[in-house]
C-alpha cells in the first residue's frame, strides 16, 4: 500500500494571529508552526495501513518555504518513509488551485495507491485542495473520512464519512483521494528513536520547474482584517421574568434588529 500524504505546515492553534497594518497578510514574526492537525490524521492512517499490510510506503508531500522541513521531518519521525518538499518562491501564498496543480504533478511523478489530504487546513480554511487534486488526477474522492477499511485485495475501500447528523458508508475503488476528518484515528507522537531515524530519511527538494508547471493562481486576496471586537453585552436585572422577556424582545427587535 503506497500512500501519498499531502501535508501542510500551519500556525499553531495557540498562536495569536495579527494582521499586518497594511492588510496584505498576517504578521509571521514570532509564529510557531505545526503540522495541520487534519494532516496528522492522514499520516497516522497511512502508517497504520503500511503496518497492517506489512508492505508499502508512506510518502509525505509538502508545498511551502524552508520552514516546512520541520513539519516533514516530524512526519518522518512518526514513521513515514520519505518526503518530497516543493519549495518555490512563486508558490508562497499560493491559492488552493495552484497548490492542487503542484500536488497533482508531484503525485503523477510518484505513483500511489491512495492520496490523503486533510479535509481542510486550519489556517486559510479553504478545504478545496483535496477535491481539486482528485479532479486534476481524474480520481474518485471521499471527503470527511472518519473510518477506512481497505479490501484484502487492495482494489477498493469501504469508507465512513461524516454527514449532517450521522455517517455515510461508501465503497470506493483505489486509487482514490481521501480527506481526513477528526475521529479517523488518534495520531501517534514522534518517538525519540523515530526522531533519530528521521535524520537519515530522504527529503527530495523540488521546484515548480522540476515538476514542469507554472503556477496559475485563480484567487488573489484583496485585504485581510480582524473580525470586529465583540461589543459588551447588556444586562437586564432586578425585574420579574415576564417583564424582562418583554424588554429583551423589544431590544432584539429595535436595537439589535435581529428579529
Amino acid at each position: 500500500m503506497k500512500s501519498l500524504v499531502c501535508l501542510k505546515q500551519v500556525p499553531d492553534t495557540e498562536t495569536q494571529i495579527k494582521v499586518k497594518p497594511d492588510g496584505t497578510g498576517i504578521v509571521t514574526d514570532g509564529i510557531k508552526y505545526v503540522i495541520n492537525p487534519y494532516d496528522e490524521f492522514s499520516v497516522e492512517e497511512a502508517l497504520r495501513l503500511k503496518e497492517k499490510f506489512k508492505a508499502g510506503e508512506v510518502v509525505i508531500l509538502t508545498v511551502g518555504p524552508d520552514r516546512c522541513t520541520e513539519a516533514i521531518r516530524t512526519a518522518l519521525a512518526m514513521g513515514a518513509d520519505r518526503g518530497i518538499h516543493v519549495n518555490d518562491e512563486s508558490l508562497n501564498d499560493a491559492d488552493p488551485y495552484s497548490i492542487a496543480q503542484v500536488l497533482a504533478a508531484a503525485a503523477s511523478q510518484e505513483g500511489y495507491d491512495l492520496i490523503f489530504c486533510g479535509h481542510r487546513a486550519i489556517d486559510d480554511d479553504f478545504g478545496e485542495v483535496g477535491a481539486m487534486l482528485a479532479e486534476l488526477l481524474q480520481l474518485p474522492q471521499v471527503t470527511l473520512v472518519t473510518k477506512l477499511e481497505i479490501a484484502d485485495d487492495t482494489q477498493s475501500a469501504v469508507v465512513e464519512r461524516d454527514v449532517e447528523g450521522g455517517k455515510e458508508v461508501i465503497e470506493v475503488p483505489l486509487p482514490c483521494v481521501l480527506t481526513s476528518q477528526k475521529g479517523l484515528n488518534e495520531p501517534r507522537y514522534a518517538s525519540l528513536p523515530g526522531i533519530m531515524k528521521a535524520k537519515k530519511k530522504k527529503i527530495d527538494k523540488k521546484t515548480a520547474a522540476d515538476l514542469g508547471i507554472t503556477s496559475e493562481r485563480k484567487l488573489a486576496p484583496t485585504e485581510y482584517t480582524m473580525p470586529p471586537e465583540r461589543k459588551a453585552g447588556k444586562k437586564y436585572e432586578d425585574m420579574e421574568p415576564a417583564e424582562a422577556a418583554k424588554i429583551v424582545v423589544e431590544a432584539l427587535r429595535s436595537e439589535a434588529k435581529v428579529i
Partner: protein
Amino acid sequence: MSREFVHERDLRFLLHEVHDLGSLTAYPYFEDHDRETFDLVLNTALKMARDRLFTTFRDMDQNPPCFVDGAVRVHPMVADFMKECGDGGWISATAPYDLGGQQLPRLLISACVFVFAAANYSASVYPMLTSGAARLIESFGSEDLKRSYIPNMFEGKWQGTMALTEPQAGSSLADITTQAQETGHGYFLIKGQKIFISASDHDGVENVINLMLARIKGAPAGVKGISLFVVPKKRVREDGSLVPNDLHIAGLYHKLGYRGAPIAQLSMGENDDCRGFLVGKPHMGLQYMFQMMNETRLEVGLGAAAIASAAYHAAVRYCKERTQGRRLAAKQAGSPPVPIIEHADVKRMLLFQRAIVEGSLSLGLQCCKYSDLSKTAPESDALKFQLLLELLTPAAKTFPSEMGILSVSQGLQCLGGYGYCDEFPLEQYYRDVRIHPIHEGTTGIHGIDLLGRKVVMKDGQALDLFRRELEDAIKTAEYYPELKPYAERLDKSLERLLEVTESLIPLKHSGRTELFLADATLYLEFFGLVAIAWQWLLQGTACDKMLKTNPPQTEFNFYQGKLYTMRYFFHYELPKTEALAKRLTEADGLTTEMHVDWL
C-alpha cells in the same frame, strides 16, 4: 483554564542562547545529534504535555489514588502515559545506544521533564522515577540484573522506585533497620518496613521494581553498613512468569497536594519470602543511591520551578483580563477600571514569579549541563564539572523548592479571592508545590550538606571553581554598559559570600560544629541567591548580545522582558544577601543555646 504552562521561547533561549546545547555535540557521546533533532524532541515533549498531561492535571487531583483489596489504583492516564514514555523512548532517552537509549543530553531531556512537570507534576514523576532507578541498575548492577530489569523498565512496563525512608529514619538514613539475610542462593531475604515510597504500587504497570536500602545481617552500624537491593513487587521465575514477592502495601498516605501520585507504606517479608538482589558490593548502598538521589534532586528543583511556571502563566493571563480599580494617577471619577496588570504592585508580583521561575530553571539546566560534561569531557575537565555539580545541587534543589512556594503564593495573590477557590488552578498549584522542600532531603539537610560538606570538600576546591565561573560571567557582562552595574552587584555579593564562608570555617576547625552549622539553612539561602543572580547575569548577557543585532519586534519584546526581570532580581531579591550576611557573621549561638523547654 489557561492553556499555557511554560514559556516556549524562554526554553529555547535558555537551551541554546544561554547554555549552548549544541556545544555538547562536540563530544563523541552526543555527536550524532544536531539542532534539528533537539527541536523535534522538545516539540514532541511540548505536544505530549499539552495534549495528554495538561488535560488530566485537574482530574488527577480530584480522583487521587485509592487503596482497594491491598493494591493501589491510580488514574487511568498513568498506564497510557507510562506506555507512551516507554514506546517513545523517553525513559531511556539519555542511556547509551547499546542499552536501547538515544544518548541524548541530560540538558535537553531535563528541559522536557520540566515541560511535563509544568503540565502535570504528578504524572511526570512516574517515568522519571523509573528512569532514575533503571540507571542505578545500569551503573552498579550485575549483567544479570541489567538484563532482567532494565528492558521492561525502559519500556514503561515496570515502574521503578527509590525505597529509602522508614518510620524512624527519614533525614537520617544511617538509622534504617530493614534487614537483608544472605541465603547463598543468589538472593537475600528482606524484612522490614518502608514508608512514603512514591509510586511503589499502582495498576498502571505490571510490576514495580524497588531500589531499596537495607542492612545485611551483621553489617557495621551507620551509613557504612547500608547496601542496595533490587526488591521487585513480583519476582521473575525462570520461565519469565511473575510471582508475588512477599512485599505488601500496608497503606496509602493522604497528601496535601501532588495527589496524582501515590506514596505507600511497604511491608517486606511478612512470610519470610521477600527476595532482594544485591546491587554492586555489600555496604556501598548509600554511596550508589546518591547517584539517583542527586539526579532526582535536580529534577525536584526543576519540578518546583515547573509548577511555579504554570502558576505564573495562569496568573499573567488572569491579570490581563481582570479589570479592577484605576491607575493611581487617574483623576477622572467614573473612568473605566483598568486590567489589574497595569497596577505597579501587580507587575511587581508577576516579575517576582518570573524571576524565580526563569532563574531557577536556568540554574537547573546549568547543573544538567555540568552533569553531561562530567560524563563526556576529558578527565581533568570532567572532575571540575563534577565538583561544580556537587556544590550546586543543594541550591538547585532548594532555591526553586523554597522560592517556588512563595512564587505560587504570589500567583494566587494575583487572583485575589478567586485564587483561593477551585474554579482556578492556583489553589492546586499552591498545594502541589509544597512538597518540594521536604522530599529528596529537607531544606535543613541540604543546608548542612552544602556548608558542612560541599563547601569544605577538597579544601574548598568546589567553591573556588564556582567563584571562577562567576568571575568569568562578570567579566563578560562588563563589556555591556547596561549590564555593568549588575556585574558589579554580583561581584559584591560573591565577595560577601566568600567573606561569610571564611568567617564560618574557623568554627568548624575549632570543633564548634553545632555553631558552625546552626544557620546552614540561611547559608544555603544566601548561596542560592548568588547562584541565581549569576544565572540572571548570564541571561542578561545573552539578551544584550541579541539586542545588538536589531531583532524583529517579538524578539525585541522578549529580550526586553528578560532584561527587566533580570533587573528585578538584582534590585529586589539579591539585596537580601546583605541581611543574611549580617546574621551569618554574628555567630552568637542564639539557636544552639535556646533551651528546648523554653519552646
